[in-house]
């Protein structure tokens, strides 16, 4: 059975955060702070994005001693394309608004 990703508001917020700086590697906690999505919701979404092949992940390479390496995320090329479409479609349906317009 294929993986399905429901475009919930939280998913769209996360995609928006990842798209804000598409080539930048993001940390989980930074995404959570930016989007106010709690860890229990954030990681299942990231896991699904990863399984769908829309998320690139890697472990931090240079780590200060005594601290575990952190996991880093950014959208793949296909992922960015898909994310833009999803955000655009959600805006058209007035289902979701970008964070900037909400402020």
């Amino acid at each position, binding site marked *: 059975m294929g993986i399905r990703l429901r475009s919930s508001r939280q998913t769209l917020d996360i995609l928006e955060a990842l798209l804000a700086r598409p080539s930048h590697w993001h940390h989980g906690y930074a995404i959570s702070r930016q989007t106010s999505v709690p860890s229990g919701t954030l990681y299942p979404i990231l896991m699904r994005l990863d399984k769908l092949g829309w998320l690139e992940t890697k472990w931090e390479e240079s780590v200060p001693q005594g601290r575990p*390496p952190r996991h880093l995320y950014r959208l793949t090329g296909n992922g960015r394309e898909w994310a833009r479409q999803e955000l655009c479609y959600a805006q058209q349906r007035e289902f979701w608004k970008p964070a900037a317009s909400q402020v």
Partner: protein
Amino acid sequence: MGSPQQAMPFRLAHSSLQLALRFWPEETRDWGHALAAELDEIEKPLVALQWAFGGLMLFSRASASHFLAWLKLPAGSRLSTAPLLPGTSVPILPKRSRLFTAVILLAAALLLFLPQSRQAISTVVASWNGYEISSGDRRTLANLAAQAEKDKDGRTLAFVALVLRDPEQGMRLADKAVVLDPQLTWVYASRFYRPADVQQPTEWLVRLHASDPDNSVTDLLIADNIAQPRYMALMALGTPGLQQFESQITGDPRWVAHMEAAFRAPRYDGYVTKHWELISYVWSSHPTLSPSIIGYELWAHRIPNLSNLMSFANFKIRRAQQALAEGHPEEAEQILRQIDAFGNLMTDRAQTDIECLIGLDLSRKAARELGAHYAATGQEAAASFRARRASENAPADFSPSVDGGVPDDSKSVSRKRSPLSGGHRITASLGSYGGFQSSRDRASASLLVPSPTGLATYAVPRGGLLPCVAPLRLRWVCTEFSSLCAPFC
């Protein structure tokens, strides 16, 4: 003073996530590590705890899907990514043994021994079969009757007698129930018509009348019984007109006498409440009874025949008109007042909306005629009062029409609480004389509806007598709890 990371909430968050990571399923463990690694970036203790709580939720989801994957394994195999018990090489989830599969199957089979489980299954099956009484239900009823006879439980016997379709057995059990508990004589009223094509003992009605002589319903049932053969004979020739039926039936002095007695009786009780109490008693004593049995019994009650009531009211009105023409205005007024009084009694004491509407219509007829009578005799104030009453008793939806009798829900009339409904509002509508439709908006109440055969209630259009021939298709019990009666006529 230590660093904030050494405060109790941080340590709690760290240790809970580390513990979860030891048991985290292999396939998603990296994500657990990723989540735990972020803890060092958090500065506020409460946020750290929230973060760790989210991690534990993620762990529980991962463990659940891991367990589900394990359940789906073929017997004798194990998950390749099974997490090990800490400090050992023993996987937390063992091989899927055949014994485990057998135990699960046995447990599932044992569930069938629970009456509640069987009832749940039979509810689904009954909904497929339109709540028809099955052979299993018949066995249940036979056992119920045998036990009731042994226990001398008249009420349960009466219940079974009403449900059974076998006329001989039903009649035998009804008689036994009444012998055990004479207060159950009312059961004859309901059982009498089941099925309509089988001759029921007429002495039942005599006994019923003797046990409840002040109740107009007992006389109405006897009158129904007298009218039945005439009506069936007319039906054999095609759909009879109301006038044709009236002309035949009003020539029968026995019928007239019983209808007269019914219109003079001080009480009106259709036994609906008693019937409902009987069902409640049996259902509470046997809570796992099949929904088909309860469903069948819930709707199967009889109310007096509308055509008889209308025919007799018309007959009386004609007599009043004749009396007035012959110069006896007091007699004419008395006759019309009698119709009005009976209509009011029926409206007030009705336990179903249909009966209430019939009563209202009788009162309206009488008020209209009384208004005309007072106008003809020069009593203007009384005429105006009666005309007002006639209009009050005849809401827009209640006036006769010749539109073919299509019931119209938009014209529904709601009435006072029904005593059998336990507070649930029952609504009914009489879209025209051509049809009735009744519905409930809540569960657990019964509304009585006429039988499709025999002398029950008929929808009476202006120009003829249309029997309610379409059988009621009741599929509502235990499922929708919304609609009681399918439209008929």
